[in-house]
């Protein structure tokens, strides 16, 4: 230690200039060395990946864009030796792919339904925006009612409720109709409501409960239903468009959205039922879930469409799309139930015990403590079900409902557009459309997952 510091010769007065890091440590080259070529296996995989991309992407781009035909009137435009995608075909069939056989003059109604759906859905999905309660009410309650009227034209034929089936009403009021609303039905409805209210109230009172409150609940149920039927019953002056004429993306979305919206609450109920202590509820839930999971969707749809009319009394012929909708909803509810049950089982017992110790009732415990955690846990599973449901809607083709893909397949058979590339063009387009929807759902679920994942962050 014989260093001297007096003259300052050994002490730097200024910072040494910062040297650039060795070239092997930074930049694209270093990144590649580290991530792509760090070992023999990694290098091989990288080369393989690059080959794959080189093999797939250029022909794809060439087919979809470079060699593609962009304008034309019929098949003549897309004939030729080195022709790529035939986009005029999609142009010509675009209306059908979206609306199916929906009458052209009435398509604005579908547009309104699409636009309103998007307008209501977007603020509902952005978690930070206010008025969630009103928004949810509008989307889940008001929107389906209005959409039904717009799409079908409303003015359903409500001619008999319960008493008229025994021929008791028409004799009293005759055949009066006001603005498409059948008086017989409404007298029937009000009388039936009063009867049922009296019956339920009396029964509950007999059993020692509060007959008055039971009757009041019945009243509200009847009022809500009455309002619903009334809105659908009024003749708003729109032409009737039967569901047979629906098709394309419209049908895909109607089935998928109904299935998604209906299957989640149903699935939650079934999952809770399956874990219930009450033997009858548990048994019913188990039977329901196992039945629907044990039957292929195609069988369900086929049965609902062609076999059901043979069992039902003649004249009662529920709408084909409705039958498919109910089938799809019940089917996906069974799957959803098992997803939710997985979440319920992952909640530690302590959560239940804590909730009970706080004196919460069963429904409060489920609503405030257990379900919020359980559902957050299984978001990937739920969205997985949604996505597969969205794609499964294609199966309705076998019961002659033309969804997006069905409409596309039907378009292939138009001799005016039969060319060697029509098939590829159509499927490429369908692939892009389906991908956009499914990828959108998937990204949104990731976002929600991250957003709600407050307690499990490590």
């Amino acid at each position: 230690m014989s260093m001297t510091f007096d003259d300052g010769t050994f002490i730097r007065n200024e910072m040494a200039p910062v040297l650039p890091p060795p070239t092997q440590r930074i930049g694209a080259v270093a990144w590649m060395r580290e991530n792509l070529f760090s070992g023999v296996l990694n290098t091989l995989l990288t080369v393989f990946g690059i080959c794959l991309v080189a093999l797939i992407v250029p022909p794809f781009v060439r087919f979809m864009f470079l060699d593609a035909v962009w304008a034309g009137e019929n098949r003549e435009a897309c004939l030729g030796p080195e022709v790529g995608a035939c986009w005029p075909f999609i142009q010509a069939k675009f209306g059908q792919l979206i609306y199916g056989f929906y009458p052209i003059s009435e398509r604005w109604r579908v547009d309104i339904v699409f636009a309103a759906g998007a307008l209501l859905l977007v603020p509902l999905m952005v978690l930070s925006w206010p008025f969630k309660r009103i928004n949810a009410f509008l989307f889940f309650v008001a929107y389906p009612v209005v959409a039904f009227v717009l799409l079908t034209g409303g003015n359903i034929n409500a001619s008999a409720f319960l008493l008229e089936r025994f021929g008791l009403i028409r004799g009293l009021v005759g055949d009066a109709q006001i603005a498409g609303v059948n008086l017989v039905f409404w007298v029937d409805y009000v009388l039936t409501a009063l009867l049922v209210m009296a019956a339920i109230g009396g029964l509950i009172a007999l059993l020692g409960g509060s007959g008055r409150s039971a009757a009041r609940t019945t009243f509200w149920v009847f009022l809500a239903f009455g309002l619903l039927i009334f809105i659908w019953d009024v003749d708003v002056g729109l032409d009737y468009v039967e569901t047979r004429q629906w098709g394309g993306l419209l049908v895909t979305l109607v089935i998928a959205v109904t299935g998604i919206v209906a299957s989640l609450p149903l699935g939650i109920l079934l999952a809770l039922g399956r874990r219930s202590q009450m033997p009858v509820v548990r048994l019913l839930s188990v039977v329901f879930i196992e039945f629907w999971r044990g039957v292929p969707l195609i069988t369900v749809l086929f049965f609902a469409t062609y076999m059901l009319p043979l069992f039902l009394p003649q004249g009662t012929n529920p709408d084909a799309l409705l039958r498919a909708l109910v089938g799809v909803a019940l089917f996906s509810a069974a799957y959803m139930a098992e997803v939710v049950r997985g979440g319920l089982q992952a909640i530690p017992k302590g959560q239940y015990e804590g909730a009970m110790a706080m004196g919460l009732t069963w429904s409060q415990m489920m609503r405030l403590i257990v379900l919020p955690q359980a559902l957050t846990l299984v978001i990937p599973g739920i969205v997985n079900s949604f996505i597969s449901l969205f794609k499964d809607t294609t199966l309705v083709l076998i019961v002659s409902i033309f969804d997006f893909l069905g409409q596309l397949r039907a378009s292939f058979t138009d001799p005016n557009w039969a060319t060697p590339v029509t098939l590829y063009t159509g499927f490429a387009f369908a692939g892009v459309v389906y991908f956009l929807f499914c990828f959108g759902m998937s990204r949104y679920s990731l976002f929600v997952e991250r957003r709600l994942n407050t307690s499990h962050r490590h």
Partner: protein
Amino acid sequence: MKRLLSTFALAGAMGLCAFGAQAATKLEQVKSKGFVQCGVSQGLPGFSNPNDKGEWSGLDVEFCRAVAAAIFGDATKVKFTPLSAKDRFTALQSGDIDILSRNTTWTITRDTSLGLNFTGVTYYDGQGFMIRKDKKVNSALELSGASVCTQTGTTTEQNLADYFRANNMTYEVIAFATNDEVVKAYDAGRCDVLTTDRSGLAGERLKLTNPDDHIVLPEIISKEPLGPVVAHGDDQWFDIVKWVLYAQLNAEELGVNSKNVDEQLKSAVNPEIKRLLGTEGKYGEGMGIGNDWGYLIIKNVGNYAEIYDRTVGPDTPLKLARGLNALWNKGGIQYAPPIR
């Protein structure tokens, strides 16, 4: 008490009414709902396929329009149910559709054991072969040793086997699940010959890279009479559907078409034309429809030749010659019983 009794009586009467309404004939049902429900294919070029306007078009479709025209005088009063080959008969049996007009081959099994009636033949089809021109083959009998592309599990495959065995020829089958795969394989040269119904060949040919390099051989190795079908149990309905086709054939034979029908209605002297158009005789009455049924069909839809020409004929992309489907007096076998 008296009032109660009368209420019950009223209820009983209404119940009977309701029952009576259910037992209505097919024609009454169709008239009361205001349209004909017609089962068509989910897409077969030229027979039933959606056009650019989003309407069904094709030979099978036009036939249903003609039935609607005969009953309602309005060819648009028809609704179409696209059906797959599997559910077509179920849909007819369950009453979901009134007519099945879906390129259905008339066979004894279908006619006798399924509770169905075939009403006639709208198109005489038959299985044929397509081959590349440069193979220099002019007859199916020269095909020994050829590889043949076809669809699995169809009667096409059976007919093929029968034909080659009967003529003592060897062949190799290359079968695919869907029609599109079959065409792609043939186009790519994986087989020498493509076989399916002749009308189908015309449609598939359009999907080939160079349609002009291929020819259809003259042999037809199976009989495929395609026609509309109705359910058993309503002979009046059966008659109507049957005679709609006959009216169209008779109209072609008599030279009445949608353009000259109004003129013919006024000035025709030929009693056959007068009977067809309903100015003489009461032939609609027997079927429960208007006596001008023939006029309505021709005016709204056209005669057989007009329908054929605008759906599958030589001026359409399918370019199918009339062949067997020409009238009996013009070299074909389409023959309608007379209207009298």
